């Protein structure tokens, strides 16, 4: 099962500041542990949102609106992610709990989300088709 550990942004990460050397070291060890256990699939850190853009579609069917970064709602932003391949949700939680506080200053926040995979996708499509069939039957 694939899970994504999403590390939320903070004032520091949005300011483009490097993490302290202690945090760096703790993160290095944590990543090493993930790799050694054979669970880490990918891991990346993102630039601050100041060089990002946002594309939104406020009016359906019309041209999108492009907004330049930085974006203000820091806590909703993402600073990086780690993709892990594990046996169960419980195992994913255990690995998430082992990550060091990624930001410090009371701002650290990690979100754990499951990633859709091939068999689930086909199951989902099958369920959808089934529902569609049922709702069509219900119609007179």
């Amino acid at each position, binding site marked *: 099962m694939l899970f994504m550990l999403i590390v939320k942004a903070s004032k520091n990460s949005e300011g483009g500041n490097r993490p302290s050397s202690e945090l760096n070291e703790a993160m290095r060890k944590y990543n090493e542990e993930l790799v050694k256990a*054979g669970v880490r699939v990918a891991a990346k850190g993102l630039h601050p949102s100041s060089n990002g853009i946002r594309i939104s579609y406020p009016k359906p069917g019309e041209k999108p609106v492009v907004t330049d970064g930085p974006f203000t709602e820091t806590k909703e932003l993402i600073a990086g992610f780690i993709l892990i391949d594990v*046996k*169960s949700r*419980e195992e994913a939680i255990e690995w998430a709990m082992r990550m060091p506080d990624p930001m410090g200053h009371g701002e650290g926040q990690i979100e754990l989300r499951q990633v859709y995979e091939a*068999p689930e996708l086909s199951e989902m499509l099958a369920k959808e088709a089934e529902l569609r069939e049922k709702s069509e039957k219900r119609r007179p």
Partner: protein
Amino acid sequence: MTNCRTHRTIEGIWTVESARIIAGVARIIQDVSIAEDLAQDTLAIALEKWPESGIPEKPGAWLMTVAKRLAINLLRRNKLRDQKYEEIGRKMEFKGKTDYDSIDEEINDDLLRLIFTTCHPVLSREARVALTLKLLCGLKTDEIAQAFLVSESTIAQRIVRAKRTLSASKVPFEVPCGLELSRRMSSVLDVIYLMFNEGYSATGGENWIRPTLCSEAIRLGRMLAEILPEEPEVHGLIALMEIQASRFKARIGPSGEPILLQDQNRALWDDLLIHRGYSALKRIEQIGGAYGPYSLQACIAACHAKARTASETDWQEISALYDALSQVAPSPIVELNRAVAISMAYGPAAGLEIVDALEDEPSLKKYHLLPAVRGDLLAKLERNEEACAEFKRAASLTQNEQERALLLKRAADYV
């Protein structure tokens, strides 16, 4: 925290730690069977204590300490307080003061000893796979049974017998060295690849647990690559498995029928896994390693992965790789594949020459793909009558209904 929630947390911790704990205890007790029992006892203690005391800050270290204490107590009780025990006791005291890196190293060594033991050549291949899944991957007996479509008691017996064989043959809990290492290494890699193939060849849907064999194999391989970064074939095996796994979504059609590589929708291939495969191959280059059978097969898989459409496939490169593979690991099946690659690169006549040389090969007497390939090459050379006969022969040899229908249809095309 509620009891139920704590139990689920413990379950998660156990998934992460169980193999290391079994390995750590096995080194003290020199017996994987007793080590597994003691690890289970340790889990039982945690399940009893933690709901009250809360989860310790370093749960892995807690479990390891308790498990090793149980092991030492057992040695004591068994009056094995000989020199061996004293030595171990002294070593353990020292370890209390060493830094984390050396403890990591020690865990790695123990895990390595464990996998070399569960993949020991005194065991049958089935037994190796079952024992590895049980002790290193932490799968339960019923899960292994479901994965292999056999009864739970069959697997339970297989595991009991395997453990008995290990202790009867006095297999030492160690990493082999010298010439023995490479022989034993290839047994470990074979077990992992066997596990992977067992899961990979299963068709989707009907049995949910079989794909877990693939993920267990990949996980084990990735772990091994970290412990033995200097072994080129470990990286070769990982690369091969990652690239094959990248085609998971594309290799089966909507009604469960297998789709051949050249007909797969390449947009469904998983780029992340393909790139992981490429980087594993790059590591072989970086360590300057020799390309063994797994590495060469991985290179072939990578070659296919690089082609955005089937027609862009670099068949000359692939035939060169098959040439190398047939030198390193000659087998009739490799020869047949080489014939196909050569026919794609240099024309059907060149391929047919190799196939014809395989006609008297005893191990391919009942192998339907030999006449199927021969028929295909003959058809390309417009030798229709012979092609038709070969397709009919292939149809009579296959066990698979869908395949038989396809071959008979091809036979009819060349009447």
